[in-house]
């Protein structure tokens, strides 16, 4: 029974992820005095990409073919782990380290594949992606551990339950801000990376996947939106969790969706209001996130 519920929840997250991306893009458009793309545009993009053929360089090896699938697979597995409306501790695998390192697995293969085509764009993108991942990892651990210490466990479901029972406090706000910065870094949004362009100077994630075309691009694009959704869900459930108790799960789900959309709009506002940072200023930003997390820990 719980497996079926888990599957349903995962499928819903996977299906809703492009919608969140659409909301962000639309909001950005509106803030830039444009009409902005439709909310459902990412779905159309994905369906279009699923019908396209690929142009593949003869330099590549099986890693290049394998990487998008493994990236998508880890994104789905992460979506199954993340605590949303229902938490499933019975299956015993939703540990926060598993989540973090599943993403690392996907990123490893994608970065390796970026070197595979033998182009400088790919190499630069891969190098910068690993660079950003190195910088993000300590603040990510720090931020997640502020919640983990309170819950006295590294199990995501236990952490979510404990967080849901907590109240607004200064340390929670600090931790939330820190995790917001980390979300921006992990999902490749301005000010860390520009998800809209495809020039080597402004792209990190996009540069890494420059050589892909057709269906793999669709898979990677969808996996990125799932990753974004997972991080927003983590932010919402662990750091700003204040649920209304005592109502039916459907209403809890709707409340959660509302919070997610609010965060999406917030992300869009942040993206519009600032510009992309120089690459070597990102360590400073990550250090700031780390300091916020430490302060949150101290203030607990």
């Amino acid at each position, binding site marked *: 029974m719980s497996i079926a519920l888990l599957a349903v929840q995962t499928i819903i997250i996977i299906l809703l992820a492009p919608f969140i991306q659409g909301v962000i893009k639309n909001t950005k458009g509106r803030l830039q005095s444009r009409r902005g793309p439709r909310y459902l545009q990412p779905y159309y993009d994905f369906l279009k990409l699923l019908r396209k053929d690929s142009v593949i360089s003869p330099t590549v090896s099986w890693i290049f073919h394998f990487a998008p699938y493994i990236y998508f697979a880890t994104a789905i597995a992460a979506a199954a782990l993340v605590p949303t409306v229902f938490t499933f501790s019975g299956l015993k695998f939703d540990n926060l380290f598993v989540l973090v390192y599943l993403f690392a697995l996907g990123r490893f293969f994608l970065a390796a594949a970026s070197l595979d085509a*033998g182009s400088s764009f790919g190499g630069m993108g891969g190098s910068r992606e690993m660079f950003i991942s190195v910088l993000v*990892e300590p603040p990510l651990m720090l931020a997640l551990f502020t919640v983990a210490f309170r819950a*006295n466990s590294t199990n995501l479901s236990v952490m979510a339950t404990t967080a849901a029972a907590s109240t607004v406090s200064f340390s929670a706000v600090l931790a939330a801000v820190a995790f917001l910065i980390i979300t921006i870094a992990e999902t490749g949004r301005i000010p860390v990376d520009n998800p809209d362009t495809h020039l080597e100077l402004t792209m990190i994630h996009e540069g890494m996947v420059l050589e892909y075309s057709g269906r793999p691009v669709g898979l990677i694009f969808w996996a990125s939106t799932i990753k974004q959704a997972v991080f927003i869900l983590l932010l919402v459930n662990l750091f700003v969790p204040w649920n209304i108790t005592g109502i039916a799960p459907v209403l809890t789900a709707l409340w959660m969706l509302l919070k997610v959309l609010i965060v999406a709009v917030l992300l869009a506002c942040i993206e519009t209001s600032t510009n992309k940072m120089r690459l070597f200023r990102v360590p400073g930003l990550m250090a700031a996130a780390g300091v916020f997390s430490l302060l949150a820990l101290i203030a607990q």
Partner: protein
Amino acid sequence: MLIEQLYLVSLGLFILGSCSPMFTKGSAKATNYLAHGLATLGCVVTIVLAISVLLTGNHTVAFSLGAPIGLIKARIDYLAAYFLLAFGIVGVAASVYAIGYSREYYIHRLALMAALYNAFLLSIALVLTISQVLAFVIVWELMTVVSFCLVNHEYEKTGNTSAAYLYILMTHIGTAFIGIAFLLLATAANTLDFELLKTGALTGMLRNVVFLCALIGFGTKAGVIPLHIWLPEAHPAAPSHVSAMMSGIMIKTAIYGMSRFFLEFLGAGPEWWGQLVLILAIISSVFGVLYALMEHDLKRLLAYHSVENIGIILLGVGAGMVFMSKGLPVLAALAWAAGLYHVFNHAVFKSLLFLGSGAVLYATHTKDIEHLGGLIKKMPYTALFFLIGAAAISALPPLNGFVSEWLTFQALFFLPQAVGGLVGKLWSVILIALLGLTGALAGACFVKAFGVTFLAKPRSKKAEQATEVPGTMLVAMGFLSLVCVAAGVWPQWMLAILQKVLSSYAGIAAASLFQNSDWYAIAFQAQQAGGVLAMPVVVIMVIIGFGVAVVFARLAGSPKKDAGETWTCGIIPNARMEYTATGFAEPIRRAFGRVLNPVDVVIADKSRNPYHGVKITIHVHITHYISELMYRPVSNGLYTFANYLRKIQAGSLQLYIGYIMAVTVIVLIIGTRW
């Protein structure tokens, strides 16, 4: 009795293996097969021995060699059996690998190398089992000397001899400290037998001295920063299967020694012991992997990663010591289990990686990854096994590196229960963050190493002419990869072994540690909370996701794939357009520039045409602060002192006789006046 016989058989096989080249000197092929075959058999027997000891119980084999050493006992208890198991697995792989790899050495004194290799295996087996102080120091020295000879085997290449000298110098400094520690213990307990050493009553100050001497002594052999300077020199200089044994097992004998000291001889000590070990461990981890990222010699890179992983092992050990000192036996068991499990895992995947780099060396005759590339098409199996090793060392699920790092993370997570208050939480969270940092850096480093070596186009002629390596090498690497995957997806059996290993020491309660495990999950119960990890479920989730991805990709029919060359602005792409390894690591080098202090030396060769076609060579050096700040002043001071002393040596015979006369007269006067 069976165990005693197995032990003697394994030792005998190694001895036979080291003597056999004498008889097969005529034919290099026969030497190769016979010596390495005997080594393989010896390692297989060692595995059987270890498993039987783990199943039946402690066992002691006693030899008597007369004065002055007296009775020598070889004790194979659970701890020794655990290390012997790791030794056996890695040894089997390395020996089988050596059969194929030694073809490169047919003209290079193969008989000597095969004999020394067997002697090396023999000495390691002895070190792990001998339980008498003097005999232990003797076989420790034997191991050092044999590995010195092996490191120096290709002494024609520049740099190998100085690397070997540095290695033996540092190891002997370590052995001196180990000797001091052992002697202090032995005089206090008035016995030379390991089993009775813990009964000695040492006062507080002496216990601290013994602890520090053991830490420095074994730390030199293990490669803990700041005593690690020999590791990046010695491991690349040795032949590849020897490097695998050295990095996989020999530095683990140092961890074995530390475990004996901290678990058995000394027992629980004050808290600052564990904290000191934790500090050294985290420094080793972070700096080890940072320096590894800056290397583009494949074996030096792997050697620095050994430093990093020793740091991770010591994180578990240090946390265990802290828990022991605070009287939290279950958590101590968890932490020690994490450290010891990482010993096994590191042995397996590090030797896999060294064997892989040896295969690359065999095929292309270069270790410089800037000259490699595109090897995945020429050496597909090697690339696959190297990829598995790289994924394991980057702690990616579902391989074994992830499981032991997960256990280490959990041990560190529970650290605030030992070190109370805000300080405990901060210290624990800083350690966890830095450990995460090392994991991410290791991942970046291996994307670089694997990507630049195997992917894209070959960057030099040597890489273009590579072919797949002989079958025995592939079999060995494949075996180790299988162990990696197995230990990652089903770690329960290893953890059950660790439970047995740790259950016999004071201050640790391992008996009930992992009892809630089902067939698909490992779970531990600590003081207030537990942790759960189900690797097979993760694997299943990933496979399901994979299937979904494939389904989506095939939704609109099978994709048509056109071939189109990589876009390089219209030029035909060649290897010079690919990303270099130095370039790949450059953002990290810059971001950590304060610590690494990189120096770029740019040489522009404008001889042909000053405006167009300038040839630019860039050398990037980083400053190794520890060598600069610690070792260079010491060696400079020694040189200056020696230069002063040189003035006494005037070269004149008369002056020397004059020295003798002066001393004689002085002795005469003193002798008669007092």
